[in-house]
């Protein structure tokens, strides 16, 4: 059965000459990947599920005791964890919305005949090619109240971007928007250039205004690809760690992943942190599922 699903091997090829069948070639490619996935992804995933029901601490010799749902109960009753989730939600919304606005806006601007379009696009893509940690360190300098260039350029004096508890999360989100808008821009650009030109010509003949054209033609046709960008960025924003960890230590900007890191690798509460990781996993899965459902709906239209 399997042989019918893949293209058969050319009889005169070197692989065939060595006596390798289609199935063995397929296995040669797939089995190592599957094994890798099982050993490094599936196995730890299941193993940590087991740990999440114990009071195991990796830093001691004490045996792990089964505590049932205690870890989950404690975590969901912990006001600090809830505030971490609220902060993360706020961060995801600000950062993804910002990226969508800026990225799509820039894509609209670029989606026309302008000189040096290729070069411009490439330059705009640079931020997302940098490492998160490097971006974090640079923006920390840019935000510095004493010598940072942002305050200097905007004439803000010694405005404290990162040490002001109210501002810190926005400052991190701003950096994330700077870094990842190009990603949304790239996907939008691909979506925009795929919109058939004849639709615009038809709209022009019917004397449709620019707003009408945008909301009735451009947006619906680009929506599926924008949704994909939103899914990716939401998942990534939910997991943000390095950027926020480097930029600020404000409790008002403590994302759930930072809390998880502290719990797992500073406090060594292995059991409890496994439980928290599972709660986060379930949340990300749920959100992604909603998006995917919506994406399918958009595609059907």
């Amino acid at each position, binding site marked *: 059965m399997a042989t019918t699903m893949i293209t058969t091997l050319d009889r005169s090829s070197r692989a065939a000459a060595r006596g390798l069948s289609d199935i063995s070639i397929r296995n040669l490619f797939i089995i190592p990947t599957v094994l890798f996935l099982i050993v490094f992804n599936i196995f730890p995933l299941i193993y940590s599920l087991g740990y999440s029901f114990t009071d195991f601490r*990796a830093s001691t010799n004490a045996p792990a005791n089964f505590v049932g749902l205690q870890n989950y109960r404690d975590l969901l009753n912990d006001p600090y964890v809830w505030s971490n989730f609220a902060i993360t939600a706020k961060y995801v919304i600000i950062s993804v919305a910002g990226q969508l606005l800026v990225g799509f806006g820039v894509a609209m601007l670029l989606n026309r005949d302008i000189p040096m379009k290729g070069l411009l696009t490439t330059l705009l893509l640079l931020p997302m090619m940098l490492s998160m940690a490097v971006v974090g360190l640079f923006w920390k300098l840019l935000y510095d109240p004493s010598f940072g260039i942002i305050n200097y350029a905007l004439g803000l004096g010694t405005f404290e971007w990162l040490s002001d508890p109210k501002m810190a999360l926005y400052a991190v989100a701003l950096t994330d928007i700077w870094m990842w808008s190009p990603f949304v821009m790239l996907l939008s650009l691909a979506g925009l250039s795929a919109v058939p030109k004849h639709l615009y010509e038809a709209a022009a003949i019917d004397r449709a205004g620019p707003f009408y054209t945008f909301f009735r033609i451009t947006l619906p046709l680009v929506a599926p690809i924008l949704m994909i960008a939103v899914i990716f960025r939401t998942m990534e924003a939910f997991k943000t760690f390095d950027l926020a960890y480097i930029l600020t*230590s404000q409790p008002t900007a403590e994302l759930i992943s930072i809390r998880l890191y502290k719990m797992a*690798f500073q406090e060594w509460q292995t059991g409890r942190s496994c439980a928290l990781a599972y709660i986060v996993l379930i949340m990300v899965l749920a959100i992604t599922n909603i998006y995917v459902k919506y994406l399918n709906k958009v595609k059907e239209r």
Partner: protein
Amino acid sequence: MRKLVTSVLAGIGLTLACGTSVYAQEKSLTIFWAEWDPANYLQELGNEYEKETGVKITVETTPWSDFQTKAFTEFNAHGDAYDLVVGDSQWLGAGSTGGHYVDLTDFFNKYKLKEVMAPATVKYYAEYPGNSGKYWAIPLEGDAVGWSYRKDWFEDPKEKEAFKAKYGYDLDVPKDFKALRDIAEFFYRPDQKKYGIAIYTDNSYDAMAMGFENALFSYGGELGDYSTYKVDGIVNSDKAIAALDAYKELYKFTPPGWAKSFFVEDNQAITENLAAMSMNYFAFFPSLINEASNPNAKNTGFFANPPGPNGDQFAALGGQGISIVSYSQKQDEAMKFLEWFIKDETQKKWAALGGYTCSAAVLKSPEFQNATPYNKAFYETMFKVKDFWAVPEYAELLQQLNQRVYPYMIGGEGTAKETLDALAGDWNATFKKYGRVK
């Protein structure tokens, strides 16, 4: 195909063979520590050891921010990458009860280290649990939080006159916490880009806790009873509340953006002409008297943490002891290194290289005390230091302190009493969880 398999196998075999033979031939020890100047001094000391014995010493380092994480990741995996580790004083509980450290009690008693080393260093760097007579480390780097200040700003006659007119007493090295606050306020001049004081505020590890402890201990407060684990009524006592308020008061006079500051920022406050006074570990003072790293080296002075309102004078303890990792394959070799390390002449060399020896005899010697402008303050401080909890769950206690104190210190949320009451509640719950209190 068969050829390929054979050659790969041969390659693996060769690598293994080479690996084991190198292992057998060369005697070497790896010591793990954080990335800072004292680690370089220890490497130099290790080079001396190699000259004498032929055993190669490698000091491996990692930045402070992930020192704890990296060390415990290795311990938890029972890895033998490090033979010895210069661990933070708070790790003793986790290191000893977790089985990561080799019991050094016999070694300690054999060489009477309890008398050789300064008492506070034995108590905080080596013994766990407190007063048990069980030792897990040899005090290596003594350290405590002290202060540096700008002598030129303090000695300016105009400043002196203005200060006396405003506060009614002479501008000098602060004699108590009130003077510390007044001087910080006096020099706080944002329009001139001059600020009063630099303190620790970083909440990612123990920085803010150490800074707060400096105020707490000098105000006569305590974090709790280290033998009964009672915290309620101690960490939230009136003295502790006054101390937290005093520490928060100092935050008003810090340079802008001082919400995530630790040793790097606090030394910068002096080198970049930002602050009149700066809190820091003694271990970071050598770079302040070095003209290459501090343009104000000639004008930088040092003082010990001042007393509080009741005359109590203490300081927060830093510093580390050296322990043998129980997963090391070369424990005997490591033991020999420690035997060499505790010798008087080695300790003298260690001090001369820039290490802060814990040897009582060397500390008391005039040549040590006169060697640098801050050694005398260091000697005085080392006999009145106190430390954070050293229980295995100290990281949770630290996190809870950061979680409660930081929003009050930096964000101005709630009151000192509410903050410390809540902290006492958190700590009590944690001690309950680990069965230390009922």
